[in-house]
């Protein structure tokens, strides 16, 4: 079990940022993954007192504070309506209600875990993250590059006229996913497809409107064609839950199903 020398419930983001510049110090989210490690934390930085536990729905976007729990996401009526249930679907398999009442959006996103359903889901939406020092950064960039010792303040989802769906394959219903797949069909017919648990962290693959148009002109099976494209391009690997080959196969299956549903 990890040890913690000091605990600080910070009163400002500046205080959090300053504390976080020291190497042994860590920002704590839901603590679920952190506590399983054996590391020694100097100061545990708690953002609980900063009011970051709100989901604000605005006309053009959702602003989701870093301390919002996965259960909050699951139960949010606005997100449910906007994503046609995809957000709920992306989190409801994660261990259990008691777990999701603790796990935070910030923790899930900042950790950039390979298995993250949440990261996969948000990648498929037009999402940005707000970093205290780094400002607003597209989630895709953040997912690729991380943010060092900066502080994740909120996640911003811009509303667009897109249809969404979320799927995952799991060996048991509440296990880590073998593969995750979030798909968005944009207004112009293009697709944004996020594949996670490869088992490396989720990546975003785009299918342009032109590509889709070309296929439609040829009267091709769109779902099949996109599925094959993803299958060919996706990079997968093996772990306890499945082989690289199986994951590649699943990527094809899930993408085809997603496009069939959304097209």
């Amino acid at each position: 079990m990890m040890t913690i020398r000091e605990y600080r419930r910070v009163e400002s983001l500046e205080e959090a940022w300053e504390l976080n510049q020291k190497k042994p110090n860590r920002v704590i989210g839901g603590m679920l993954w952190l506590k399983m490690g054996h590391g020694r934390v100097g100061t545990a930085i708690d953002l609980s007192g900063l009011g970051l536990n709100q989901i604000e729905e605005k006309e053009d976007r959702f602003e989701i504070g870093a301390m919002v729990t996965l259960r909050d996401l699951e139960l949010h009526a606005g997100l449910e309506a906007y994503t046609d249930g995809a957000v709920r679907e992306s989190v409801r398999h994660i261990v259990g209600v008691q777990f999701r009442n603790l796990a935070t959006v910030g923790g899930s996103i900042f950790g950039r875990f390979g298995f993250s359903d949440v990261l996969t889901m948000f990648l498929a939406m037009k999402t940005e993250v707000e970093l205290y020092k780094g400002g607003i950064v597209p989630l895709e960039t953040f997912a690729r590059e991380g943010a060092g010792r900066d502080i994740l303040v909120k996640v911003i989802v811009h509303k667009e006229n897109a249809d969404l769906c979320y799927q995952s394959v799991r060996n048991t219903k509440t296990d880590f996913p073998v593969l995750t797949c979030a798909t968005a069909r944009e207004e112009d017919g293009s697709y944004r497809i996020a594949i996670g648990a490869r088992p490396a962290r989720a990546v975003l693959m785009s299918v342009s409107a032109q590509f889709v148009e070309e296929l439609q002109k040829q009267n091709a099976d769109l779902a099949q064609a996109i599925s094959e494209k993803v299958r060919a391009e996706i990079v997968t690997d093996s772990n306890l839950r499945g082989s690289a080959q199986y994951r590649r196969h699943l990527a094809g299956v899930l993408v085809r199903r997603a496009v069939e549903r959304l097209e």
Partner: protein
Amino acid sequence: MQITFVLNGRKVSEEIEPDMLLIDLVRRMGCYSVKRGCETSNCGLCTVFLDEKPVLSCSVLAVRVDGRTVTTLEGLQEEAEEFGAFIADQGAEQCGFCNPGFIMNALALFRENEFPSEEEIKEYLAGNLCRCSGYEGQLRGILAFLDWKKNKQQEKKPVQGEEKRKK
């Protein structure tokens, strides 16, 4: 460090280490119903309410409950008995080790959703592992409890209706 919180309806102050977990704190304070079944936040045995929401006490830093409200099964004895009797009537309590966490979370479910469907029950309680019962007896117990509760409510209603008619 010193924290003050409400445990089972009583305001308490405790001296704790910064890395102490809530499960260890409440057990130290005599709430032995709270059990540890794993180190990976998977089993649900340690479920307590934190400000009325069910959480895994194995994954909450004790210091974080400062100023908040914690409820364990010790603080819900009447409800535990009322609902637990239906589990007992199925023999589904079995070894009993997962019971406190399971019963806590079931009570949380009933508070959020008074008459959940079977699917809703399964989904809400998915994070409560049990190795003895195969879950089927627990489900029977829950459904019997909900039936009883529904009947109790319906019994009350006609009585009120009758009174109205009498008036």
